[in-house]
């Protein structure tokens, strides 16, 4: 058996790191800024991601569509980078609605497929823009939980911006970042209205504060948390919902570890059309690119990002 000399072994290791393997850059980074995956609005990154599970609960009041109910949801989202900066994704949720007066109804949401491409980054300014297309496939969900038989396509613009490039005198503001989406829906068939879907997440990274601005001595797990508020809104453009806006304001907190991120948000309806009760969503993002670097964390085709 051939013995490899230690020095040659070290050199081979370094060469592998520098050239063969490339330097990895994975989920949610633009330059030095980490943008954590958010719960109520989609983030602008076309990377390998797995949200498993996403659990939700809300009490729905009675409406013209039916009696009041307690609605539970359990779902997932999986995204895979196919080419550098281009990813495809799939998400699905199973719902159970316990009616106030009667039995429970249960069933799947419509399957949602997404394609996303990161079109622009500015590393020093911690900024990113992406475009994508979301397709909610009609008829794949259950009529019992009110899912539409018609497909809806939604071209989407994604953005993210960190404020770490502000001057030092704005030190306390530098941990802030925003991400968000603007999407135009096009229902194919049926009488669903076109809507403008718009969302924004305002987040404050305590780890950015500790590592880049001022170490205020936060202990674990608080030093790895990101308090945030998300606004997930929808404005009708025609038919019966022209000019009507619905949505939720979602304050919460994200906690990042090396393997996963755990997040929880309250879902507060912005008006009576959006709901009558506060809901809650719990979500875990599993960092599959870090957990399984041989399989995830790089595109299938086209080399590393």
């Amino acid at each position: 058996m051939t013995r490899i000399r230690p020095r040659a072994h070290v050199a081979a290791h370094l060469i592998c790191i520098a050239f063969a393997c490339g330097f990895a850059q994975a989920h949610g980074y633009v330059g030095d800024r980490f943008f954590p995956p958010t719960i109520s609005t989609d983030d602008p990154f076309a990377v390998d991601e797995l949200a498993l599970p996403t659990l939700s609960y809300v009490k729905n009041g009675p409406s013209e569509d039916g009696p009041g109910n307690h609605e539970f949801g359990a779902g997932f989202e999986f995204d895979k980078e196919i080419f550098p900066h281009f990813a495809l994704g799939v998400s699905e949720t199973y719902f159970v609605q316990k009616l106030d007066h009667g039995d429970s109804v249960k069933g799947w949401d419509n399957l949602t497929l997404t394609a996303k491409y990161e079109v622009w980054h500015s590393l020093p300014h911690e900024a990113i823009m992406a475009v994508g297309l979301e397709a909610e496939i009609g008829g794949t969900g259950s009529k019992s939980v009110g899912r539409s038989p018609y497909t809806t396509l939604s071209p989407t613009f994604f953005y993210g911006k960190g404020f770490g490039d502000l001057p030092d005198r704005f030190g306390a503001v530098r941990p802030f970042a925003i991400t968000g989406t603007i999407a135009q829906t096009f229902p194919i068939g049926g009488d669903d209205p076109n809507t403008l879907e718009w969302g924004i997440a305002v987040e404050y990274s305590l780890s950015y504060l500790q590592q880049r601005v001022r170490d205020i001595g936060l202990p674990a797990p608080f030093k790895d948390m990101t308090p945030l508020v998300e606004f997930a809104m929808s404005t009708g453009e025609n038919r019966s919902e022209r000019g009507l806006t619905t949505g939720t304001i979602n304050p919460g907190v994200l906690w990042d570890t090396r393997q996963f991120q755990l997040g929880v948000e309250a879902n507060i309806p912005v008006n009576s059309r959006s709901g009558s009760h506060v809901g809650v969503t719990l979500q875990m993002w599993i960092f599959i690119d870090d957990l399984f670097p041989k399989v995830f964390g790089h595109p299938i085709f086209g080399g590393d990002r």
Partner: protein
Amino acid sequence: MSRILRFILMCSIVMITSGAQIVSAHAMPDHCEPRVGSTVDKPPAEVRIWFNEKIESAFSGIEVFGADGKQIDKKDSHVDAKENRLLIVSVGTLAPGTYRVAWHVVSVDTHKTSGDFKFTVKPQ
């Protein structure tokens, strides 16, 4: 519902526990000396940064700059021989003023990260 929920939760647990043996991640500072954004009475002889991951010495380093933008460290940044999460650079006798510390590291699983912070040496 309960069966599907149990299945999803079980998948989550399996993913986490099976990955725990092969986990790797981005190296980020755990803490620093001098502390990030601090004002110190006594000038430090070294700048030390402890990371939350093991780092590659050949691709990791610290540079320290004075208020005029000139590099003032001894250009001897290195990973500690006993503690491979600790990156160190020597600095000369620092005059009172504000200094910027820029770091860049590659974790042993090749993830590249960088960042900077400032500290101030108080006038005597």
